[in-house]
């Protein structure tokens, strides 16, 4: 009897097209809004890929970075986390710690693990699983004015001392005593920017918060290097950076570089698009080199980098499956390259196939900065860390990004309100406190 009933149901559903393949699956898709072009290209690709999955619909939404954690907390509490999200590594750690993600190791393997740049996979690895698909590979290096270097007879610096000297040489006083040019912008905005500048220097000297091999907390054991890094950063600021840069954020130091007020800056490549819009003549003199290590005898140990990742939220099996299928379609090399091209140079594809693809390599900006991209791809992108994620995914990264304790310590040291050693002690104490909080 039971058998005949189920057969009858099967026939009826078959006749009326109610099969599993056509079942309605509504997905929510969030992306952090960086540029309108990026959101548009993602939306276009969703529309291209959706016909492969009849019955699947996507509600696409852009979420400003500033509102992201608030939105995520609320969504997780209501059990309405997005099915797919495109966001930075700190949020991957946050979502994973809150048990809001499913691993995407299977998707990585289907796409070919070797195709991804290893450092971007390592950053989101935990418990033997990969928790995010690398998309935009972000990178931080020194952007400088080649014309000014040539004019001053300077070579690319290979140590902190050489960098400081070059920055001093490039800081030119005008007739009224007001510097006409500053050698190096050292931005120290309280939120996000100060930690990024500081850890770029700290990583170049071989420092880490957690040991990349053991995962143990080691910042406290590396105080001499931490102090040396901060002292160098402040020396560079006092010798060659505009005094107001102690509170500069991205827009201020990028504007200063694009307008020709500073000769060098630690940067993510966003100055290219900004210069193209505001001062295109200056573009031809832009060049890059990796932020040097303390000594010319050794290459910089690492840089501070990051990435945008696609996450799959914990949900019903059909939604997880549909989400992964959609991402598989969106990870076609051409599409990965298209997404990177929506913010060229700032974003570089995290897969080798997309980097080598005609779509990426034929982009005008990419062609213009081909030698610089080679340097970034070969010398910067393979070895990077994000504060707290040296040994893989860690929610402390989100805490560092959402708070200001590193910025406060750095700014107070730069303003001579506290000693460098006290600033490092404050950072150490707060990091330990945060780690303890996350364990509770």
């Amino acid at each position, binding site marked *: 009897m039971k058998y005949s009933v189920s057969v009858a149901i099967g026939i009826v559903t078959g006749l009326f097209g109610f099969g599993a393949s056509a079942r309605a699956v509504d997905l929510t898709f969030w992306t952090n809004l960086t540029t309108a072009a990026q959101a548009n290209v993602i939306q276009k690709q969703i529309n291209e890929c959706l016909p492969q999955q009849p019955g699947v619909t996507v509600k696409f939404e852009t979420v400003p970075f500033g509102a992201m954690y608030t939105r995520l907390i609320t969504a997780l509490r209501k059990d309405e986390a997005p099915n797919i999200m495109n966001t930075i590594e700190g949020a991957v750690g946050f979502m994973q710690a809150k048990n809001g993600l499913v691993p995407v190791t299977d998707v990585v393997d289907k796409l070919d693990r070797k195709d991804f740049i290893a450092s971007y996979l390592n950053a989101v690895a935990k418990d033997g699983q990969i928790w995010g698909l690398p998309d935009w590979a972000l990178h931080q290096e020194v952007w400088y004015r080649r014309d000014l270097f040539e004019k001053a007879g300077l070579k690319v610096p290979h140590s902190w001392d050489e960098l400081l000297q070059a920055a001093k040489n490039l800081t030119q006083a005008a007739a009224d005593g*007001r510097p006409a040019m500053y050698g190096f912008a050292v931005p120290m905005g309280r939120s996000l920017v100060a930690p990024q500048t500081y850890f770029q220097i700290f990583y170049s000297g071989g420092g880490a918060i957690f040991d990349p091999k053991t995962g143990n907390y080691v910042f406290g054991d590396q105080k001499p290097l931490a102090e040396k890094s901060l002292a160098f950063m402040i020396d560079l600021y006092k010798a060659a950076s*505009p*005094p*107001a840069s102690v*509170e500069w954020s991205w827009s201020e130091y990028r504007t200063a570089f694009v307008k020709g007020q500073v000769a060098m800056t630690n940067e993510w490549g966003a100055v290219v698009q900004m210069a193209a819009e505001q001062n295109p003549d200056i573009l031809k003199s832009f060049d890059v080199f990796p932020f040097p290590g303390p000594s010319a005898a050794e290459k910089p140990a690492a840089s501070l980098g990051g990435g945008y990742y696609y996450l799959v939220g914990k949900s019903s099996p059909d939604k997880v499956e549909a989400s992964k299928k959609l991402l598989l379609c969106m990870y076609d090399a051409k599409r990965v390259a298209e997404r990177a091209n929506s913010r060229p140079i700032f974003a570089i594809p995290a897969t080798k196939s997309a980097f080598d693809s005609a779509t990426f390599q034929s982009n005008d900006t990419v062609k213009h900065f081909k030698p610089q991209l080679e340097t970034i791809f070969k010398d910067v992108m393979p070895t990077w860390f994000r504060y707290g994620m040296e040994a893989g995914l860690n929610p402390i990264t989100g805490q560092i990004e*959402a708070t200001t304790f590193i910025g406060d310590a750095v700014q107070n040291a730069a303003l001579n309100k506290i000693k460098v050693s006290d600033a490092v002690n404050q950072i150490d104490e707060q990091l330990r406190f945060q780690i303890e909080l996350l364990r509770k």
Partner: protein
Amino acid sequence: MTRRSVATAMPAPAPPWHHLRLGTSWQLLIDKQARTGLLFIAPSVLFLFVFVFYPVFDVLRLSMSAISFVTDRERFVGIANFVEILRDPKLATVAWNTLIWTVFSLIGQFGLGLAAALCINQNVPGMKLIRTILLLPYVVPVIALALFWRWMLDGSFGIISAALQSLGVLGADQSPLALPNGAMASVILANIWRGFPFVMISYWAALQGIPTEQYEAARVDGASTWQEFRFVTLPCLGAITRVMLVLRLVWTVTFFDIVWLITRGGPGGATEHWPIWIYEETMGFFRFGTGAALAVFLAGILIVCSTAYLLLLRRESDP
């Protein structure tokens, strides 16, 4: 006879309708009226419960809880969050910053607001336009206002910084926002600029209500302009000042946006006031219990201050 015995000897006051001998039909009518009244106030009561009482109760509950970051599990911790706040080394700095921010913002807003109100109270051609222009800071969105101030204070391109640099107050390419005291002064100025139109309009309305006879009488008595202001205008503005002071005190202490958007509480925490501390604990460290305790702490201080102020005023106004 003591006062108490007089009170007990007095009969209980009768209701206003005691002379009516209510029949059943009247009783029904009153019941019906009461029911209708209850229906009318029901939306307001519901609104108060949902949007006032419940959130306040929830914040109080949260302030005595610790919530795990990973599991979201709540546990009752009593007054531990409050004890932690009192032991926090940040407390003195943040409390001082909040005091400076509030006191100087209020002095500036009331001073400028009163001066502007006296100006717009004059009947001269073009005053309508001036009144409208002076109201603009209050209607401009805070984000636009914050960006506008940041540009004016930019060390390299800002008009205010350039003026201060040329006067020798600031060094070359320096910005007030990069100096601890300068940053606090900057956000206070921005807040004065933002808030003075409210004070101006309130004072202007009060000025319109002062009878002209009072000024005429003062002039007959030979009062100077200053004496007219001191003995006629100021006393007449007393009532509105008292109300506005309480309102603006609460609004200023809890005003988060402008400081966050201009300085983010920096440099080095020099402009971190109480609302920023609440935000950082809640949305930075995700310590909802501590954030709620900070909010309750601040509310407590504000309630105590406002009550003390009102009691003081009542005592002063008692004959």
